[in-house]
């Protein structure tokens, strides 16, 4: 009886040790990176189709895997792919940083970058207005491109054996 209790204690302690290692190993594997450009688009796969989310400069992403020049990341409750050039292993603030300075400074357009790319930007709208041009033509072009789903694109690549999905 006492012997089996002792074994149970031994087993429990051993399990606790193993679980401890496992937990810490998991914590170690959760490498984090920060968005270094004004925004990082997170895509459904390794290419610009199927936008999952747009992370702003300074926001944290958790790396789940590295694949070629892409990282599979967790962002808030979403998962997707981001290009490694868009992030930094160093924590970055949300203000102007190296990435933006290279590109000429931080944004002053006042646009919500999480919505960036959803429609025509203010300057383009003003340009169209000033030149009396129809902005809907470009909006139609953009809508057509955004209507392409990741599944469609994947099927297209596989059928032609081209692109990141077709060459697998």
């Amino acid at each position, binding site marked *: 009886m*006492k*012997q089996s209790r002792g074994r149970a*204690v*031994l087993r429990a*302690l*051993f399990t606790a*040790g193993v679980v*401890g*290692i496992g937990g*810490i190993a998991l914590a*170690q594997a959760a490498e984090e990176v920060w968005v*270094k*450009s*004004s*925004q990082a*688009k997170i*895509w459904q796969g*390794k*290419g*610009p*189709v199927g936008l999952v989310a747009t992370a702003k400069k300074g926001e944290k992403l958790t790396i789940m895997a590295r694949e070629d020049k892409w990282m599979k990341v967790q962002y808030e409750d979403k998962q997707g792919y*981001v*290009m*490694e050039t*868009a992030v*930094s*292993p*160093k924590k970055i603030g949300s203000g102007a940083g*190296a990435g933006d300075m*290279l*590109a*000429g*400074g931080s*944004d*002053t*357009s006042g646009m919500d*970058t999480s919505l960036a*790319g959803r429609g025509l*930007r*203010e*300057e*383009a709208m*003003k*340009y169209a207005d*000033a*030149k009396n041009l*129809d902005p809907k*033509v*470009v909006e139609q*072009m953009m809508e*057509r*491109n955004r209507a*392409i789903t990741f599944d469609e*694109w994947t099927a*297209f690549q596989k*059928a*032609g054996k*081209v*692109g990141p999905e077709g*060459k697998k």
Partner: protein
Amino acid sequence: MKHEMKTNRRRLVVAGTITAALLMLALAPLNMGGCSASTIGDAVGNAVGGKQGQLIQATGKGVTALALSETQEDAMGQSVAVAITNRFGLDPNEALNKYVSLVGKTVAAASPRGDVEFHFGVLNTDEVNAYAGPNGYIMIARGALMRMQDESELAGVLAHEIAHVVDQHGLNMMKVAGLTDAGMQALRTNADIAKWVNATDNLVEKLVNGQYSQDQETRSDLLAVDYLIAAGYDPRGYHNFIQRMATASSSGGDLMSTHPGLGDRANRVAGKINQKGNFGGATLADRFRKNVPRPTA
């Protein structure tokens, strides 16, 4: 009884020792991990940062870093697209536009800016040309599609335009044309829309009149070969198309008027392909014919 107690106590001691050892083992990498991960991360970050810096600055001789932010570059791309699509109109064939977009996105994914949301469109004109606005607004004329024979040729022309975007040739053309850093900064404040309109018009005219430098055209041709190979397309398709256009031009046609020196360019592309030693990849003639209908006589 006494023996049993001793045995159990010894087991507990052993168990405690094992657990302590396991915890130490577990904690040790945690500390080391913080240090080593940071060190490795720094190395990767520097490499990546350097690469990005090169992309931003490797834009032609004597041209320094750009003065537009990413969102402003996008706004300039959209403004250029507004001008060009209004000038020519978009081809109403949605299936054709979608096919071109699928090919373009496949090539773009193989470029160093594979995460840029590229937009592709077919212009409603029989001209043989293609245009690239900053940040991925690429428009190809239907006339160019009509002179292609397979998907690898289309992929090649789109790869060339994607390279112009990757290297930010449009924005640098504005700088070369005399738009100063101060002028670019003024654009960024958006205080005076007249300046923005003027800068956009300036760029559009240069694009339409084919005023990329020889260096920019050459670099885009060579990068296109890299992107095509990375995407799995036969790069010889691109060479075939340029060669065909060069032959047509020399026989008196006005094809690809905004892309001069086609013969030399075809030779340089052939040289790059030979250097790469890549003679495979997809051509997809059947899929191209299915998706790009020829006008009925």
